[in-house]
């Protein structure tokens, strides 16, 4: 396919890696922000192509992962109601709450529907005027224009049976939370390409300047990611820390102004709780007061549902780049995609789920590099696997 296949060329990938080897003089820790990038990296084994010492840690940019468990439980409480058609993106259906997932609810007779676009909810609402159509509006800035359009059109068309359960998160405050932590290891970021397609990258300029950290806005195909790593390593080697744009075929500094305008009309910035991390100030969107009639948290009595996470899960440290999936004793033992204990295992784009899906728990080559740098982080089982030929 055009604009995809060109960016999957193995020969060009080898050239980028060769250039990286030529310029790199010491170890660097880079974080890819977006879950889609994590998935592409693990799927294509890109982290294993990198020169020794260039390490990728996996960021918090998977909205399915960071949606708090209590928000999942609130969604399930609404989806179980008899008069509700509960609509969601497919990714959310398998995410378990305290008591089953949306598929369980559907199998028990709940009306749960997967939608391709939030606009599908308008069609469902028009066809079912006696039912309440509730949409689980999760996502980062990338998804905000689509979800904002649903709220906007519902109000314009006076479709009073449409509401949104909003759990929207924002990237820049999460990056600041990572950088401000005394435990931070991240020296450079691959910025979130599709978030910036909507928002531009102006917001990242002060973060890069204040924390003296290179941020390279990066795409999702293998060559995009390798070039993003190369550009970041180049900045680090040259002692520079600026925002650069690898994904120039898709975005510029301004982003999508019509989308930003509608987001601003529908949503306002609010504090948000992130699964595995906790509450980050000003890190999400909620519906503006003008859209209260379409706010599912106000329409349904679910705000007091609170849920605690399993204590063994280290997803918070993984999301902040402090640890990797292999450092968790529960990884692929107590915790797998069918029985996830926490954020990074619940969605295919979570770091733990990606490691599991591509067999890293069977033959953890990727962990070898980390364990050479920080051997004390290696759990006994992963260490043993490595000794028995993990890097073969």
């Amino acid at each position, binding site marked *: *396919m*055009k*604009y*995809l296949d*060109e*960016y999957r*060329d193995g020969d*060009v990938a080898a*050239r*980028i890696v*060769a*250039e990286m080897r*030529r310029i790199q003089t010491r170890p660097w820790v880079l974080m890819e922000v*977006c*879950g*889609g990038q994590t998935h592409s990296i693990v799927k294509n084994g890109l982290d294993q192509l990198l020169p020794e010492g260039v390490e990728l840690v996996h960021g918090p*940019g*998977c*909205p*399915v992962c960071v949606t708090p468990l209590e928000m999942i439980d609130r969604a399930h409480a609404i989806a179980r109601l008899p008069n509700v058609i509960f609509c969601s*993106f497919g*990714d959310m259906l398998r995410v378990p709450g305290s008591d089953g997932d949306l598929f369980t609810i559907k199998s028990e007779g709940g009306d749960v529907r997967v939608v*391709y*676009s*939030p*606009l*599908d909810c*308008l069609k469902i609402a028009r066809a079912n005027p006696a039912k309440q159509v509730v949409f689980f509006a*999760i*996502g*980062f800035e*990338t*998804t905000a*224009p*689509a979800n904002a*359009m649903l709220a906007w*059109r519902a109000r314009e*068309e006076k479709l009073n049976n449409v509401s949104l359960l909003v759990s929207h998160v924002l990237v820049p405050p999460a990056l600041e939370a990572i950088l401000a932590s005394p435990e931070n290891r991240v020296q450079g970021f691959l910025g*979130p390409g*599709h*978030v910036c*397609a*909507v928002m531009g990258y102006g917001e990242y300029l002060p973060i890069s300047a204040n924390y003296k950290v290179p941020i390279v806005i990066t795409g*999702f195909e293998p*060559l995009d990611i390798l*070039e993003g790593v190369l*550009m970041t390593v180049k900045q680090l080697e040259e002692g520079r820390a600026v925002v*650069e*744009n*690898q994904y*120039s*075929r*898709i*975005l510029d500094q301004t982003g*999508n102004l*019509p*989308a930003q305008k*509608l987001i601003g009309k529908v949503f306002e910035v609010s504090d948000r709780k992130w699964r595995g991390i906790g509450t980050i100030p000003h890190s999400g969107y909620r519906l503006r007061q003008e859209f209260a009639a379409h706010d599912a948290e106000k329409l349904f009595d679910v705000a007091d549902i609170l849920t605690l996470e399993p204590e063994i899960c280290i997803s918070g440290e993984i999301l902040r780049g402090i640890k990797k999936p292999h450092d968790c004793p529960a990884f692929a033992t107590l915790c797998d995609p069918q029985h996830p204990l926490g954020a990074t295992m619940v*969605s295919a*784009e979570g770091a733990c789920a990606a490691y599991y899906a591509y067999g890293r728990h069977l033959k953890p080559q990727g962990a070898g590099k980390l364990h050479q740098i920080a051997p004390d982080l290696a759990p006994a089982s992963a260490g043993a696997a490595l000794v028995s030929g993990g890097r073969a």
Partner: protein
Amino acid sequence: MCLAIPGKVIDTYDQNGLRMARVQFGGITREACLEYVPETKTGEYVLVHVGFAISKVDEAEAERTYQALKELDQLSELESPFVEDFQDSDTAVLIPPAKGSSGNEIP
């Protein structure tokens, strides 16, 4: 979740007051909302996320980036230090790599 795929706009139309398009991704055609890239014309490529075009693909930039990547190794050879055989010459020189002048840096 932030997955977005580039596709070709086949035709555009109005649906309940929204600007929509049929967009082709390889062998699959799906509907997408064009409200956020209203200037898009038939035949152009857009990046689609959850049924919304969020950006137009800049064809010139795509070509430029790809060519720059393809030329990377030839250019990096030019950047390598050039060593004259100073054993036999009075004009021995070590030319450093010409940083930033290679044209393969993406601004």
